[in-house]
């Protein structure tokens, strides 16, 4: 489909690489840049923080673990649409909206969160953090519970510090889970769409929230240009697969299978 000019159902014309040539435009660049940035921030924030929190949740010193685990997990079962609607309220534009009220206490003028280009991306990342921190914690927690306690005991005997234990016991043994979370986060981050759709109905100020899939939707379903949208989709697929293969190779996932 990506090599065709799809007019209606059943009327296709082969146009070679023209769709790909048309991709070279400012909107598409912005979309790719936004998706990549979003993916980068989610990876940066949603892997290290949940690992540390999972270690805390796994420690014997913490009370009411089940309660905290359940609360942190609740955002993950909420649909993006509902979460987005609530975030729109909290980050409302009026001076009386919750976050602007808090800012008002410190004498900062109200911010139009969703219309401001500088706050659009942080808002998307924040929504992702709210929804995904809990679920990533659970992933890492299930990995931590598979680590035999003997390893920590023998590390204690050898006089390892807490940080050393974390660095040399926890991280290497969590590696398979980290790789798994990394893989699905790359995939999820790059193909993000619903969040941006709920915030701006896919038409944000100066494309500040446009993502690759958002662009695909605009072209394919709003402008009815299915062939061109397919080209967009294939580029996304290419990016996702390249990044993931690179990442898997880099962390030696394939080596393990060979040996």
């Amino acid at each position, binding site marked *: 489909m990506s090599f065709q000019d799809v007019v209606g159902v059943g009327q296709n014309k082969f146009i070679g690489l023209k769709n790909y040539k048309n991709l070279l435009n400012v909107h598409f660049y912005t979309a790719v840049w936004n998706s990549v940035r979003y993916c980068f921030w989610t990876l940066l924030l949603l892997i290290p923080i949940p690992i540390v929190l999972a270690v805390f949740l796994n420690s014997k*010193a913490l009370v009411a673990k089940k309660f905290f685990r359940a609360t942190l997990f*609740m955002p993950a079962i909420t*649909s993006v649409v509902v979460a987005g609607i609530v975030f729109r309220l909290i980050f409302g534009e009026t001076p009386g909206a919750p976050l602007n009220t808090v800012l008002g206490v410190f004498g900062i003028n109200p911010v139009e969160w969703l219309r401001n280009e500088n706050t659009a991306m942080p808002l998307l990342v924040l929504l992702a953090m*709210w929804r995904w921190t809990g679920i990533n914690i*659970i992933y890492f927690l299930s990995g931590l519970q598979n680590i035999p306690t003997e390893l920590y005991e023998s590390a204690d*005997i050898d006089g390892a510090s807490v940080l050393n234990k974390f660095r040399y016991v926890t991280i290497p043994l969590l590696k398979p889970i980290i790789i798994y979370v990394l893989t699905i986060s790359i995939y999820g981050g790059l193909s993000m769409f619903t969040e941006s759709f709920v915030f701006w109905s896919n038409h944000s100020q100066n494309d500040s929230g446009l993502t690759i899939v958002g662009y695909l939707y605009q072209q394919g379903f709003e402008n009815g240009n299915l062939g061109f949208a397919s080209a967009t989709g294939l580029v996304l697929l290419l990016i996702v697969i390249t990044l993931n293969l690179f990442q898997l190779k880099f962390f030696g996932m394939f080596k393990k299978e060979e040996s």
Partner: protein
Amino acid sequence: MAKTETENVIIIKTKNVKVKSKIKYSHKGLLMVILFIIIAFFALLPFYAMVLASLKPATELFRYGLNLKLDFSIMSIQNYIPLFTDKNILFLTWFKNSVLITLISTVFSLLFSSMVGYGIAVYDFKFKNAIFVLVLFMMMIPVEILILPLYKLTVTLHIINTYSGIILPFVVSASSIFFFRQFASGIPKDFMDAARIDGCTEYGIFFRIMMPLMKPAFGAMTILSALTSWNGFIWPLIQMRTDDMFTIPVGLMSLLTPYGNNYSAVLSGSVLSVLPIIVIFLIYQESFISGLTAGGVKG
């Protein structure tokens, strides 16, 4: 002897460490509890905001924004009434659509995915590995890319804007196949051999022996698949063309106009769409968590 000496040293050392760590941990425990209370506060805040907003008059929300203070004098369940009475808000229809689609797709997805996964795990046949690699590859493709060809396909088959259009493309899910395959390959084949000796057919083995044995896998996948279709957005958005076929997320989105005239319905609808899942989650917490981490369990 030397051996006992080192053993003694070890015991003393571990004792020291244990005493030390106990003292350290009591401070740490307190700090951690405080940290988690803060995080839990932020995790729950949006839920609180949502319920509160759904109880407040929409005009106030739209003009001044949401005030997080509890003010019982202006709170009422007024906002929930239009969901059931307003002729332009087909909330009950959307709810019915969501429930039906979730139910049907979960049942079929579980049945087919478990069959495929079981087949790949247990039987030896030609191209078995090729099929498995294809399944793994499918897991890596974002659903968002498939919507274009699937859209064309459903238009050609004239099943657009129907339940089948929404359910059929995702009736078998690659990640469930993978999960069932991993689970089934962990079950000893002796069960199958014993059943064969007793004259059980291959179908009988699957339905009467393996299915009960794979119960935990079914539990986890039920939740994963049901949650995916309940919360699914992009595919229903494209499939469903008329408002009587919308699912809840698509319906809520359609109410969200730039003018804010339906804000009250959007919020009360959101509460009602999240509520059932939260209740089910609180009851079946363990299976939820194992269901959503299913992919990460394998080493």
